[in-house]
């Protein structure tokens, strides 16, 4: 036992990190010259001098940040403040399931086998920001739900930035392993507490084993001084069902790289999102579903409302390999522009090498339906409220598929707030 404690468990990571940093040094930060980053420029936000290792440990009171939690229900909590784990705000567990922090999984011998098997196994070894994270990240959430276990309550992962540093860069790394027939619901959030700039470069790896069910919700409602690059990689085995909902309302520049990879038949993948932004906010959804085996389904539904000078990007790639016969891949992207200077760049990309598949995509860009506006005004509802109701109705399809009722209510409230009106009834 004593010997085991002394093994340098981090040494096997050394190689991983070294090759990651080499890759990043070769490539550097992505620029608009790259096809995948054509519509999103990081230039402006990279001008800040970010501190990577905060000098102080910063404590925050629960009362200050309660509103960012789903406090109506009991949850497991893995909470970080300026990149450091906060045991005070967290509620972790090792009782049947592991909900804890990455740093201990990376350093404690008992997790070595799992880390060897899963860490950095689905994340890209090529994409520069992912490799930057791989090179340096040592903290985040570690979640392991063993075979046939069901996490008895949702897990909240929240990264707070206190703004004590002038500008902070954080690189969270989450690893989620969900065993055969296991089930988990996870909510992830990044939140700054003051207006000092923050750049978050997060990587999340999710492994869903046979028949596992994973529901993952990302709430992006940060201050407009914050920037987020979210890289999520999902590996799915036979008959697993994974859904990721991304709610993007806040932040300055937000980029979501969401990648699904299939390893088995009858897999179901769901990618949904609601984006409602204004001012000069920018949200870029870059999705990939890689169909590699027969009889799998994927469902994508992204709704975007852009006001003022906001810009949105939707790049949805569906790749169907030759072996992936009977694939059913669906992609829907609806956009409403309510600002004269708002722009959306929408680009569906279907690469299909199998001949017996059902793949469809639909993309619409429009303004609010005038006949619907007139209908509501005719019932005495003023233009502003009528607009809000219509925008709510527009995003409703995605809201409806949130499986945690309290979260559904929370998202609805955020949307009502975002639309700047009291919708006049209890939603």
């Amino acid at each position, binding site marked *: 036992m004593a010997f085991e404690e002394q093994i340098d468990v981090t040494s096997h990571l050394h190689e991983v990190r070294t090759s990651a940093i080499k890759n990043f040094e070769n490539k550097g930060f992505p620029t608009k010259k790259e096809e995948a980053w054509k519509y999103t420029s990081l230039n402006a936000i990279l001008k800040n001098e970010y501190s990577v290792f905060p000098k102080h440990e910063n404590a925050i009171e629960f009362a200050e940040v309660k509103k960012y939690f789903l406090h109506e229900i009991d949850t497991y909590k893995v909470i970080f403040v300026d990149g450091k784990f906060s045991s005070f705000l967290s509620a972790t567990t090792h009782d049947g399931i592991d909900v804890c922090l990455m740093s201990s999984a990376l350093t404690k011998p008992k997790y070595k086998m799992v880390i060897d098997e899963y860490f950095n196994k689905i994340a890209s070894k090529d994409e520069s920001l992912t490799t930057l994270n791989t090179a340096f990240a040592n903290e985040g959430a570690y979640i392991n739900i063993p075979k046939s276990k069901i996490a008895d309550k949702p897990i909240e992962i929240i990264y707070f930035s206190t703004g004590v540093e002038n500008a902070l860069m954080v690189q969270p790394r989450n690893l989620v392993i969900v065993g055969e027939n296991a089930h988990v619901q996870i909510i992830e959030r990044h939140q700054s507490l003051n207006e000092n700039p923050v750049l978050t470069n997060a990587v999340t790896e999710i492994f869903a084993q046979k028949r596992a069910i994973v529901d993952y919700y990302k709430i992006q409602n940060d201050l407009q001084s914050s920037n987020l690059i979210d890289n999520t990689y999902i590996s799915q085995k036979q008959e697993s069902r994974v859904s990721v909902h991304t709610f993007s309302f806040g932040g300055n520049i937000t980029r979501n790289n969401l990648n699904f990879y299939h390893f088995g038949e009858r897999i179901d993948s769901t990618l949904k999102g609601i984006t409602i932004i204004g001012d000069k906010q920018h949200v870029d959804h870059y999705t990939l579903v890689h169909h590699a085996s027969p009889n799998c389904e994927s469902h994508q539904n992204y709704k975007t409302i852009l006001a003022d000078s906001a810009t949105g990007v939707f790049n949805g790639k569906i790749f169907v390999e030759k072996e992936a016969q009977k694939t059913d891949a669906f992609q829907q992207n609806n956009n409403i522009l309510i600002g004269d200077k708002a722009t959306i760049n929408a680009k569906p990309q279907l690469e299909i090498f199998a001949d017996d598949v059902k793949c469809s995509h639909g993309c619409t860009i429009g303004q609010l*339906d*005038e*006949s*619907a506006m*007139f*209908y*509501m*005004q*005719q*019932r*005495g*509802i*003023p*233009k502003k*409220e*009528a607009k809000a*109701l*219509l925008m*709510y*109705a527009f*995003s*409703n*399809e995605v*809201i*409806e598929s949130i499986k945690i009722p309290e979260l559904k209510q929370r998202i609805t409230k955020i949307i009502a707030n975002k639309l700047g009106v009291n*919708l*006049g*009834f209890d*939603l």
Partner: protein
Amino acid sequence: MLSIKNLHASVEDKQILKGINLEIKAGEVHAIMGPNGAGKSTLSSIIAGNENYEVSEGEIFLDGEDLSELAPEERANKGVFLSFQYPVEIPGVSVTNFIKTAINEKRKANGQDEMPANEMLKLIREKSELLEMDRKFLSRSLNEGFSGGEKKRNEIFQMAMLEPKIAILDETDSGLDIDALRIVANGVNKLKNENNAVLVITHYQRLLDYIIPDFVHVLMDGKIVKSGGAALALELEEKGYDWIKSELN
């Protein structure tokens, strides 16, 4: 009550109404009939304030007040109700929540507080029973997946809740089977009193078997070319519109 004077209107430079005059008094039921393309729906949209139409000449008064400069919601809150031929679907907003919003906006516009919840519930129950709507219907998303009959019944339910001064029923009979037609007409008749008025816009005489008009007007090519009593509707049903054309020539 509603007074339309020499109304001329166009959409995208196409002249549709060419001088409409119409006087509707409290307690009366008027019907406007006419062939397709005569301008019937345009007239109802313009009374309700649809901004897609250009009013080039003439006025519309409600109880002596000129409506010309008022937005659709202002007209609504003063008592103009239009039952739409094609009601709009609003996913995620229930029938109940929508009507609550509408009622409270009207009260706000008239300087009243919001209606207390229990009073609202009582009113909703009472009016939905009048239209023979079941409770489940009220929690469904507004018009989403509704049959033609359900949509029209829901329009009249909203009318019952809002108690307008002037209710315009635009082709309310289209898409209705005979039972739905009876329920809708029955609802309108029960809501009718000496302080309000109804304007029925229809292509066919069928609805007028149930909602008996005091006056029937024939609208052709943007003008009211003939007016009469309820019997005129029957005559039109029997003979069509061509005889009026030849009478005019």
